[in-house]
């Protein structure tokens, strides 16, 4: 392999491996090179993501968005913002827990970067092809909950602590439907490795199990704390949530981690439900088609950014939900129906495992549609009942229940005031 | 390579530290944390024996997972008890919870 083929097929690491031979220092150096490349890429693309988000939201709200710094499109706006954050003084507030306060921003960026280790960008572009990659991602993302708690506690500020409590409640509860909905593609692919899942998708799993895809998407929204689940940083209620005491680049690191993990969730969705680096149309029309590295990475990023665009779209259009709505929606709607979905998919896939892809797709798709219709029917009946209650008593049921039963214990007073004081958005 | 005895020694040390914590701390939450340490020590033992004696069969890992399950259940119930006691007695110091003596 000469340099030209290596460049054309994007297999530079293999080329370096050939060039340097098999001395004991080669593999660690190559690992280091790939780690530095991927993490630098993730950190730098955030600059672009922030610009994209501001621009797209501005367009959706009929504004222009950033348009001064760096030419007509404001391309350098985020660079200027980052420079501003970097030049600010790094302070630790008096009374803050020094270790926890300073550890949290670093740890949260670290967990956001660690998840990329198992992401297949292209057929041979992957850090480690773990056979438990999905599980690894879930366990790393559960560590990021700890960071929020560290930040909230370490700041020694009641708003930060309240924000951290909310964040932990939200992240821990939405982890459950996320894990359960990820079990479905794992069952279909018979593998937990992301490469294995990509290779198993003759058709994208979003076509086979759309309900699982939607549930995963909703819980990914909640896990990254984006609208409509951004009540962990609801400005009007708890100032800014767990990072209210942070300034300068320490605040910037929370921001960074949020964007990196959002991009990661989009790419995870693209890999697990949309086939990742595989070009499905090409494979359908030409059975001998295989995706090369260059095509693979292009397709991967096109899919990822399509998913990411929907994230931005949702942010621009949805109102924030209340905390009781968030928890009720999770525990009373998402979790039970995801359990039903997992059971049905497991049984059905056992029955149709030996049939062709057409039968399998049709079976799963129809069962998914049936489950979705039944679940939506239940949700609709419940919504109608709640609306009736609201019309009769002039107040939503969730707000009224604590009033009828009296306060639920001395520990929950702050929480009660929050839910009472806040205007109730439209019920779905 | 690392001999099996190293893992066993580390595990024994962790177990004894946890044991000391359970016996010597006053705060019930701290005692619970020490219990978690001892359970971790047990798990190190299980996984080390599995790796060195019978890596072809998943039995060692399976038992480690059962220990993990029990640890999770124990933490949940234990902390719920501690919070309930704190509501009643305004204290989580184990020595002061002596109402059954009288």
């Amino acid at each position, binding site marked *: 392999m000469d340099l030209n083929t290596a460049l054309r097929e994007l297999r530079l690491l293999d080329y370096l491996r050939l060039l340097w031979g098999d001395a004991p220092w080669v593999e660690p150096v190559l690992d280091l090179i790939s780690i530095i490349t991927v993490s630098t890429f993730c950190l730098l693309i955030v600059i672009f993501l922030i610009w994209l988000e501001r621009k797209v939201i501005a367009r959706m709200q009929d504004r222009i968005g950033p348009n001064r710094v760096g030419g007509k499109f404001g391309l350098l706006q985020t660079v200027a913002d980052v420079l501003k954050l970097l030049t600010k003084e790094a302070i630790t507030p008096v009374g803050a827990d020094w*270790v*926890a306060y300073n550890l949290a921003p670093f740890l949260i960026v670290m967990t956001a970067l660690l998840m990329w280790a198992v992401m297949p960008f292209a057929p041979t572009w992957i850090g480690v092809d773990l056979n438990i990659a999905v599980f690894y991602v879930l*366990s790393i993302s*559960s560590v990021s*909950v700890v960071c929020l708690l560290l930040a909230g*506690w370490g700041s020694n500020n009641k708003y930060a*602590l309240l924000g951290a409590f909310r964040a932990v409640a939200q992240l*821990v509860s939405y982890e459950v439907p996320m894990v359960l909905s990820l079990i479905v593609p794992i069952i279909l692919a018979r593998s937990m490795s992301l490469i294995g899942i990509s290779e198993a998708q003759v058709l994208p799993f979003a076509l086979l199990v759309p309900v699982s895809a939607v549930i995963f998407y909703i819980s990914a929204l909640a896990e990254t704390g984006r609208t409509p689940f951004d009540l962990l940083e609801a400005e009007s209620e708890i100032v800014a949530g767990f990072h209210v005491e942070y300034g300068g680049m320490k605040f910037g690191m929370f921001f960074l981690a949020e964007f990196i993990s959002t991009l990661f969730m989009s790419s995870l969705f693209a890999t697990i439900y949309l086939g990742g680096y595989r070009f499905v149309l090409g494979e359908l029309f030409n059975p001998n088609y295989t995706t090369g590295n260059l095509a693979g990475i292009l397709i991967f990023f096109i899919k990822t950014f399509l998913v990411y665009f929907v994230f931005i779209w949702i942010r621009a259009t949805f109102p924030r939900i209340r905390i009781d709505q968030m928890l009720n929606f999770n525990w009373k709607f998402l979790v039970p129906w995801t359990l039903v979905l997992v059971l049905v998919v497991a049984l059905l896939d056992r029955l149709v495992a030996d049939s062709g892809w057409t039968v399998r797709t049709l079976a799963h798709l129809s069962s998914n549609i049936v489950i979705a219709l039944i679940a939506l029917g239940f949700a609709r009946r419940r919504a109608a009942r709640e609306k009736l209650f609201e019309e009769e008593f002039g107040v939503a049921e969730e707000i009224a229940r604590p009033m009828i039963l*009296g306060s*639920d214990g001395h520990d*929950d007073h702050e929480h009660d005031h929050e839910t009472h004081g806040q205007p109730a958005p439209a019920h779905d | *390579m*690392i*001999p*099996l*005895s*190293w893992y*066993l*020694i*580390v595990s024994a040390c*962790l*177990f*004894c*530290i*946890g*044991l*000391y914590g359970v*016996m*010597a*701390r*006053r*705060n019930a*939450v*701290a005692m*619970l*944390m*020490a219990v*978690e*340490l001892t359970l*971790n020590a047990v*798990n*190190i033992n299980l996984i*080390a024996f599995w*790796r060195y004696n019978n890596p072809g069969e998943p*039995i060692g*890992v*399976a038992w480690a*997972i059962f220990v*993990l399950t*029990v*640890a*999770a259940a124990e*933490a*949940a119930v234990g*902390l*719920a*008890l501690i919070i*309930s006691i704190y509501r009643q007695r305004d*204290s989580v110091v184990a*020595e002061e919870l002596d109402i059954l003596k009288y």
Partner: protein
Amino acid sequence: MQILFIIISAITLVSAVLVVSVRNLFHAALYMMLSFLGVAALYALLESGFMAATQLLVYIGAISILVIFAIMMTRRLMQTTESPFNSQWGMSGFVSASLFVLIGAIVLQVYPLDPAVAGGAPPAEELVTNTVNQLGVAFTSADQLVLPFELASVLLLVALVGSIIIARPDVEAEVEDES
């Protein structure tokens, strides 16, 4: 490899000692997380990536957070200046130390400490490639571990319901008090 092992176990043990000796409970919980992380690294050294990930998910992601929540809910006690230890700390130190000596002696009787003597190397790495598949099969086949597996799930359910009932404030009693 041996150096790595020594570093990891030193971190684990030192932070475990700090867990049982530090006065600030929140810091103790942080050290406990570090200790759990060290144990996860030990699992990774033992080529059990699955156990390492489970350790992260369950111990750091769930149990530590529960413990921190409990610390925060009972936090008025953290400002106490009295000793974190009770009156029997000397005795319990002696008991733990002698237990350690006892276990250590027994271990060293059977498994020598010196890598050269012990024939220390574990069985070949290739033997442990497919643990997760094997685990899945073992947990669901009737002649293997299906009964303990189901019992564990029942145990978790019981613990879930039980801890909710124990920790929930008594709403109805309070309403009666007020009326």
